[in-house]
């Protein structure tokens, strides 16, 4: 897999939420110095305040987690969320709702909640996000299991380049529920979001990203074992090497995300 030319885009904002970190600042501090990792890290409340209160109460946790990091990233980027196309990616989707639906459908009454049914679509986070931010642009919703982070970044960068639009890419996966917990090792919740622009904007970007496709993966960062575990078990958290490279002080770093069995999205990060 080769691209005709490398894809270049500019990173303007990051959002993060997961075990022991409520936002990108907290995750960044932990990626820089493992001493900042709390002893028993639990995910904080996903505030998702951009969703109106009555809607928020009906929203599943995957929606609140994805919307929370999306709001953080767009706020940090100083952009109007309604100007961004969005790509939401999740390896597992909402196994809590799938568990609920399948369990209910195994009862004689087969009664299911209409709200939980419409919330069960894989694009529920994209739907809630675009509704809450009045965004009428393209919203995608991706599943590619262990390649979800790589494919979502690739799709977002290509969309930014091809459509000349800024793109929000949001990745989220929560601990597997029901029979899915017998299959998946996902035991921790994680969500992160990045705002990519095809061109430099007025303000200084966090980094310039140059994406290329390579048969070779970059080595895993030498980081705390907590991040190795999270990254290995949670499809969305596979984006962590990119966030790690971003958190370091080096002006230039590389990270890669799996795209297919023998190909990797190599991301050169220049600050």
């Amino acid at each position: 897999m080769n691209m005709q030319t490398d894809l270049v885009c500019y990173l303007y904002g990051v959002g993060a939420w997961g075990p022991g970190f409520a936002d990108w600042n907290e995750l960044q501090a932990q990626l820089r110095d493992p001493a900042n990792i709390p002893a028993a890290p639990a995910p904080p409340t996903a505030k998702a305040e951009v969703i109106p209160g009555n809607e928020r109460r009906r929203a599943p946790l995957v929606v609140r987690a994805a919307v929370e990091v999306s709001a953080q990233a767009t706020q940090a980027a100083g952009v109007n969320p309604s100007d961004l196309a969005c790509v939401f990616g999740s390896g597992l989707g909402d196994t809590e709702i799938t568990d609920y639906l399948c369990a209910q459908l195994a009862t004689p009454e087969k009664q299911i909640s209409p709200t939980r049914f419409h919330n069960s679509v894989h694009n529920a986070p994209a739907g809630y996000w675009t509704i809450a931010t009045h965004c009428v642009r393209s919203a995608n919703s991706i599943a590619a299991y262990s390649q979800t982070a790589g494919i979502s970044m690739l799709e977002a960068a290509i969309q930014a380049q091809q459509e000349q639009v800024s793109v929000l890419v949001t990745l989220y996966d929560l601990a597997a529920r029901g029979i899915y917990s017998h299959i998946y090792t996902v035991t921790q919740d994680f969500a992160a979001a990045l705002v990519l622009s095809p061109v430099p904007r007025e303000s200084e970007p966090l980094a310039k990203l140059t994406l290329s496709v390579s048969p070779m993966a970059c080595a895993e960062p030498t980081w705390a074992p907590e991040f190795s575990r999270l990254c290995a078990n949670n499809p969305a958290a596979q984006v962590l090497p990119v966030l790690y490279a971003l958190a370091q002080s080096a002006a230039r770093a590389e990270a890669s995300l799996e795209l297919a069995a023998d190909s990797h999205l190599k991301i050169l990060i220049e600050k």
Partner: protein
Amino acid sequence: MYRKIRVIDYDLVCAAGVGLPAVRTALAQQHTGLKPNDFPDCTLETFIGRVSAVDDFIWPQADLAWQSRNNALVELALQQGTLLQSLARIREQVGPARIGLVMGSSTSSIDRAEAAYRFQRDEGFVPEEFLRLKVLNPHAPAFYTAHRTGITGPCVTLSTACSSSAKVFATAARWLNAGVVDAVLVGGADSLCLTVLYGFHSLQLVSTKLCSPFDESRDGINIGEGAGFALLTRDDLAEDDVILSGYGESSDAHHMSHPHPEGQGARLAIEQALTLAQLRPEQIDYVNLHGTSSRVNDLVEGNLMAQLFPTSTPMSSTKGWTGHTLGAAGIVEAIIALDSFQTGLLPGNLHCKKVDSEIALQLAEANRSASPQHVMSNSFGFGGNNASLIFSRSN
């Protein structure tokens, strides 16, 4: 700069027929694939678009681990026509790593999860045979298709409810234009399952009657199942004369399960597709409408189309033949629309005896003969997710 994408082969299965020749016959004869609901373990009074060939499908021993109703639909679709031969030819040309795979599905293999939960209810445990990572997975249709075709390029499942397999064309076009791949197999599959039957029933959207899109008496959808594939390449790799000339994608930003009352998002998607294709509305020779037969969806879409297009533009919903195939609807209906280049048949609006007087569209139930140059297909999904596609004959 958008370069046009060639469609070099396509085929489908749905209640109207298994494979293009059968679907063409059903369309020409106005023979619906909808039947009174006989789906196992489902007592709802409704009509469904069931592909009975799936019930007869026997998994080969080596592929037993892949079994699900949805994967069986995918397999049936792959077996139709010349799809696998065309794919083999492209594979010879560019290699399996330069072929991408973009699938669309809303429910993936949730039918298999439902079966696992029933087993657990009866036996108190879930055996290994159900605990398949690549089946109980939103990415299942692409996992199975990659396994079956040997495609090793980038592979994704788009899951945006009922626009899923329309959006596969947009993503494939971008990948081809960015040069990430030289060809893309796009597809879509959604199968009947209790989740969608009882789910849409809970929203009071399922009709007890045959669905009749845009008819004054319509009162809901009939759920169907289907799968389809199209093989796409950049325009310098083939000389086939069907091209994807435009696409548009948008969001309603309104409600999770109700359309925007003026069809704001749908309008944007349609206008984007026209702009990309550099076409005016009056140049479109046929529109395959989303037309689910729900009261609100048809009202909004119908009146929007009446505003955007001349009254003379032939339009129809083909869900009277297939039912609403949900995540497969995008590609099933794109194929029905673009196949009119081959057949010269523009399907009518089956089961629509009298167009709702609130809808300002002129729709005919009868089929027409024509020689279309440009056709459009609309798909709108939950979450307010919209896509519109335009296909053209290049000569």
